[in-house]
């Protein structure tokens, strides 16, 4: 790789990190997965808020839920990986790990301000 190629890559990586941090610096709620458990059993959020699921475990997880009749599947999350789910309609949702169904989280979504 040339130096300019390296710089380009480094800039791209930095941009990604900045973007990701900006994404999380909003009102997203963070839920971790460790010891085959979610960090919370219940969480209350407003419409439009995201939940960021972080795998802090030493095994892979696969978070999913059904929102408005559609499956939201974060796919396989290896240790340290993360992903988010947007909850854009009020209601109560059951989030589960597809691999470890004992991992359960109830998400209660209420109308946010201006909605």
């Amino acid at each position, binding site marked *: 790789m040339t130096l300019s190629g390296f710089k380009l890559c480094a800039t791209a990586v930095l941009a990604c990190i900045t973007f990701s941090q900006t994404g999380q610096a909003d009102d997203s709620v963070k839920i971790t997965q460790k010891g*085959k458990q979610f960090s919370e059993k219940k969480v209350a959020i407003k419409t439009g808020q995201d939940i960021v699921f972080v795998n802090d475990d*030493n*095994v*892979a997880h*696969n978070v*999913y839920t059904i929102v408005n009749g559609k*499956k939201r*599947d974060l*796919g*396989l999350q*290896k240790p340290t990986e993360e992903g988010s789910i947007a909850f854009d309609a009020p209601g109560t949702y059951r989030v589960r*790990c*597809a*691999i*470890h*169904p*004992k991992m359960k989280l109830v998400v209660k979504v209420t109308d946010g301000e201006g909605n």
Partner: protein
Amino acid sequence: MNIKRFSGITSVIAIAIASFSFQASSEMDYRENYKRPSEVPYPEENPYSAEKAELGKMLFFDPRLSRENNITCGSCHNPSFAWEDAQPTSVGTPMSRLGRHTPTVLNLAWGEIYFWDGRAETLEEQALGPIQAGGEMAQDLPGLLEELKAVPGYVELFNSIFPHDGITAENIGKAIATYERTIVSAEAPFDRWIEGDETAISDAAKRGFKLFNTKARCSSCHDGWNFTDWGFHDIGIGDADEGRYEVLDIAALKHTFKTPGLRNIVERAPYMHNGGMQTLMEVVDHYNDGFVDRPSLSTEMQKLNLTQNEKADLVEFMKTLSSNDPAVSLPKLPN
């Protein structure tokens, strides 16, 4: 001895002590995860009562729950074989082989979702599944209710235990599930070791338990006192059965099956969801390097490079999970 040399020796001893205490502490940490629970959990929607469990036992061993009145839940979940049937796959009502190995009923009170593929959310729902399944007991529920209502002894028992509605399909499920929750493997040599009796298991078994939690990676899925995470993993058995994926279409679930607990595992041969392995050594060989690599293979599955001695130690450890449970007596049935 000069001071420099003394200080060097002290450092070596200190490191050795620190390393020993780290090892001891990490072993104690993971031993802590395997302590037996003191109570059996029952759900609020279906609390325990001795009468309900006894009724459930009667139903479990009553052949009238099958269409031809010839097989019981216990035909496949046979207490003489640690609640399995010692066959690769069982034989159902039309005398044809089923697709999957009979799983044990042991320790289901701690379960989450049921069947190899997790298609039943509760044990109550699970209990009604094989009764109705065409290849198993093949009994339609309306026909069963009619049959049981014709037996005064059952009418009386159901009315006493479920005064609101008596004989219903739901109550059959509740009674059987309550009985099944009482089926718990008794204390095994492993449990006595966990409680501090260092003589309860052999050194080979202790080495096997350490491997189980470290190099052999077994505890990634077989964790806790019943040695299961109740989760779903593709462990690379090379058959076409897609398992949990047929119930929930998530890519990571292709070819996954529920992690079986390992209590009384010696008595539960043959092994795996298809009953394809006869010995625990075959199972260990599979995990060592015998699995099929495919996109859905669990990320926890990695080649282990175990030596023959290490494999033997793992098998010795698994033998310590047998609890020599008391024989089960058959109930008297109303006629």
